[in-house]
Each structure stands twice: as structure tokens, then as C-alpha cells.
């Protein structure tokens, strides 16, 4: 009996290790695969000029990824700028101040928004946001088709809000009510208690929710691709069109592969995307680590 239990214990242990290592190895395998495919380009052109050059003329053998990196960064940052305050305030309101009925209504709404396929957000963006942005641009005296960084940022923000909001709600719900009561009993107002206990006590959780949101936004493809215009140029203003990295890959893979190195270039774009998302994650891990120690 004892023997059997020990065997079962060992077996279960090894299964867990196997599945865990699969998960651990997967990103590595993908990374290595992409690297091998991108290697021909890397042998030809220096990494520096790939990342910092703005010359994009595949048929002439010019591969400068700066417009795509800039496009991705602009759209993501803009979406973060919209998402962060909205989610933070909404999560605080829903967990600290709102009635139970409102919470009960909001939960399914958030879940539906989170579950909508991104192509629907894209269509919605084309129908509503793009004309709106064109109108705003006209108001400011700039001509814009509406297919722009701003449209991409707004659509991306709307897509990321349910995702980030859910994470923040989960974080804020872990605050025990006794802690809030302690703060209030010492003479804090409702808002002070929220600030000191709910927000300050949860910096690591808030940062990690934002980090995951940004990483998700950076890789989001379809919806953004439908509204940003896809023009190879470093965007100069929110009303300019842009061409984010994921859109580059999705739009071109499988086509024009007769052009030498084009295949490699797209693989390099994918590798770049992987690296940037990895970097974003590491950066936020570091921030969380730093705030936790305080």
C-alpha cells in the first residue's frame, strides 16, 4: 500500500514536471525557430540598421523596421493612456462604492466585451471611430482619412478595457474589508481609505494588470490593422496613419514571397514582436518586484 502510494506520488510528480517544462520550453522553441528563419536577413544586414533604419523597400533589398516599431509603440501607448485611468477608476468604483445590483449588471457586460472577437471591434472601429477621428482632425484643421494612430489607439483601448478591468477588479476584491474599516476607524474619509489601502496596498497588482494589458495590446492584430491605415511611415501625429508590426506580418505573410529575403524579414518582424513582448513582461516583473519590497 505504502509502496503504491509512493509510486503514484512519483508518477504524478513527473507528469507535472513534463507539462511544466513543455510550457517553459515552448517560447524558447518558437524563438529559436523564428531566429533560424530570420538568420539570412541578419547575416546580410546589421541588427542596428534593421531596427533604426526607416527605409522600407523590399524589392530593393531595403529592410528598415523603424516605421513598424514606431507604429506599434504609438498605438500601444495611446491605448494605454486611455485604458489605465478608465480601468483604475471603474475598478475602484465597482469594488468600493457601487451597489451590488450595478456590480451584478456589470460583470456579464464586461465578460461579453472581453469575449467579443477582435474583428468585431475592427468593424465597429471602421464604422464609428474612423469617421469620428476624421471629424476631429478636420476640427483641428488637419486633413486625415480617419485611418490613424488615434483610431487604432481608441479601438485597442476599448478592446483592452474589459481585460485590464477584470484583472483590477480581482486585485481590489482581495482587500479585506477589515483593512478598510481599520483605516476609516482611524479617521480616514472614504476616499482616503481607498487611496491608502486599496490603491497603495496593491501597487504590485495594479502594475501587473497594466503590464499584461500593454503586452496584450502590443500583439493585438486584426482590429488595429483594420483602422490604422497601414502606411509605412513613422507617424508624426495621432492623425497620421501607421503600420504596426503585427499588421505587417498578417498583411504580407504568404504573399510576395518571391522577393528575396522578404520571408526572412517577416520572420524577423515576428521575432522582434516576441522580444518586445518579452521585454515588456520582464520590465513589469521588475517593477512589481521593486514595489513589493517597499
Amino acid at each position, binding site marked *: 500500500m505504502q509502496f503504491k502510494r509512493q509510486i503514484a506520488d512519483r508518477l504524478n510528480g513527473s507528469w507535472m514536471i513534463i507539462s511544466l517544462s513543455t510550457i517553459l520550453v515552448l517560447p524558447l522553441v518558437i524563438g529559436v525557430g523564428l531566429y533560424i528563419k530570420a538568420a539570412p536577413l541578419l547575416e546580410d544586414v546589421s541588427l542596428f540598421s534593421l531596427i533604426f533604419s526607416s527605409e522600407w523597400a523590399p524589392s530593393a533589398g531595403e529592410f528598415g523596421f523603424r516605421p513598424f516599431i514606431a507604429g506599434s509603440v504609438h498605438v500601444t501607448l495611446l491605448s494605454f493612456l486611455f485604458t489605465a485611468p478608465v480601468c483604475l477608476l471603474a475598478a475602484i468604483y465597482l469594488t468600493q462604492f457601487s451597489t*451590488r445590483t450595478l456590480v451584478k449588471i456589470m460583470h456579464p457586460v464586461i465578460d461579453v466585451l472581453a469575449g467579443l472577437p477582435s474583428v468585431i471591434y475592427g468593424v465597429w472601429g471602421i464604422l464609428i471611430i474612423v469617421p469620428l477621428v476624421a471629424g476631429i482632425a478636420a476640427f483641428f484643421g488637419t486633413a486625415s482619412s480617419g485611418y490613424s494612430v488615434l483610431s487604432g489607439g481608441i479601438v485597442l483601448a476599448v478592446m483592452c478595457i474589459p481585460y485590464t478591468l477584470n484583472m483590477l477588479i480581482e486585485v481590489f476584491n482581495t482587500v479585506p474589508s477589515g483593512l478598510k*474599516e*481599520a483605516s476609516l*476607524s*482611524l479617521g*480616514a474619509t472614504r476616499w482616503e481609505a481607498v487611496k*491608502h*489601502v486599496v490603491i497603495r496596498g496593491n501597487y504590485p497588482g495594479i502594475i501587473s494588470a497594466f503590464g499584461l494589458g500593454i503586452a496584450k495590446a502590443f500583439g493585438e492584430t486584426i482590429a488595429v490593422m483594420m483602422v490604422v491605415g497601414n502606411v509605412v511611415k513613422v507617424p508624426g501625429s495621432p492623425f497620421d496613419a501607421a503600420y504596426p508590426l503585427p499588421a505587417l506580418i498578417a498583411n504580407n505573410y504568404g504573399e510576395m514571397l518571391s522577393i528575396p529575403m522578404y520571408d526572412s524579414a517577416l520572420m524577423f518582424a515576428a521575432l522582434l514582436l516576441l522580444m518586445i513582448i518579452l521585454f515588456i513582461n520582464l520590465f513589469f516583473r521588475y517593477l512589481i518586484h521593486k514595489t513589493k519590497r*517597499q
Partner: protein
Amino acid sequence: MKSPDIEMPESVVEILTPSVAGKPALKISNLNVHAGDHHILKNINLEIPENRITVLLGPSGCGKTTLLKCMNRLTDLYRELEVTGTITIGGDDILNSTTDIPALRQRMGLLSQRPYPLPVSIFKNVAYGLKLKGVRDKRLLAFSVEKHLREVGLWEEVKGRLNAPATSLSIGQQQRLCLARGLAVKPAIILADEPTSALDPTSSKIIENLFREIRKHYTIVLVTHVLRQAIRLADHVIFMHDGEIIEQGSPGELFENARSDKLRAYLIDGN
């Protein structure tokens, strides 16, 4: 003592009179708390004597914590609770006033069942209430922090790591820290909800001795399930059952000559 409250039944006044030495620090009349159909507190009438330890006894779920939360309006946090009646401190009806609730709560220090240190350093935990009051003077804050940490017997243990997170302390130390930060805002009344239930005998003893010590300056309402602790500390005892006050009076009256069957049964179970 002149009682302006005509609604209080004669018998209650009788029971109260012998043990209430000082004037009442807090007076509750016709307090009712409902949560939907659930009648949590049923027509509570009582006086908490000043500079005494009033022990609140009763089986689990009878409404002791709810009663304490009414006294510093923490019931406001729960929309489902409907509170009616009056609670007066020094002539102010705190239940129906719209006045400064944070200031009111500072007059009623709350010590909860489990310690809830704020997610900041040990020093900042104790300085928290004073800072909310607007005290900015560093020397004054440092002085107050040391004074109250000494008062709860924690100073020697933590003086070398005042900037460490409060959560790094042991549970017993955290509970004493919570008491220190409560005392630092100079409350008139201390509401202690089973303050020693999570503590070892030594830490419990420290808190008990402290209560005995500070009752000269504070009025204490203590909820406890430990009968022996109640006997050791009580100047005045209130026994509740299912949202009602069954008996109240001096420890002698209640512990030696319980009148109701419910209290007698409770005392037998507790021994």
C-alpha cells in the same frame, strides 16, 4: 444621575444603576438594525459607563460586532444594513448627525478580531491617525509613535526597525501595533472586538493588563468569548442573545446570580 430617556424600561435602569459609577460615556436608545428580513439588533437600550470596561457577551452571531460597528458608524459601509434609533455621546446624536464622521470615528478607536496593519511601515501605522488629523510636525509624530508603542509594550521589540513593513511583525505584535495606532488618535472610547482571540496567552495577558491600565483614561467596550477574561476585566457586563439584550449589570450580578436561563446556559457552556 438624571435620565432624560423616558423610553428606557424601569428594570433596565435598576440593573444599570449600581454598577454605573461615572456618567455614561455613550447611550444607546431604541437601536434597531435590519438587513432585509433579518432583524439583527432588536430594540437595544444601554449605557456605557465612562472610564470602565464594559464587557459584551453572547453567543456567536448574536450581533455584538454589529453593535460595535453601529457605535462608530462603520455600518454606513454596508448598504444592506438599515439602522434606526439614537446613539448619543456627550449630547451628540451620532447616528443621525451628518457631521464630520471621520472625526467621530477618531473618538471611537476600534480594535478588531484580527489585526489589520495598514500596508505601510510600523512607524507610519502609528502615525496614520495623527497625520489624518493634520499633524505634520516630525518631532511630534516621532514622540507620539514612541509613546504609544511603549504604552503597548512594543517599543523595545521594534525600535530598531520602525521603517520595516508592519506585516513583518508577528500576529501578537501586530495586534498590539493596532492598539497603539488606535490610542495615538486619543479616542474617548475603545471598541475592542475579541481583541485577543488570535493571540497566544502571553500576548493576551499583555493586552488585558493594558486595558486594566488605560481604563483610567478611556472607556472600553470589550467583546469576548473568553468567560474568564470577562470575569477578570469587567466592570459592567451586557449579555446579548439573538440581537436582544437579555441582562446587563455588574459582574457580580450576572456571573453569580444569572436570572435568565439563556445566560445561565451560556455560563455553564463557557466553564
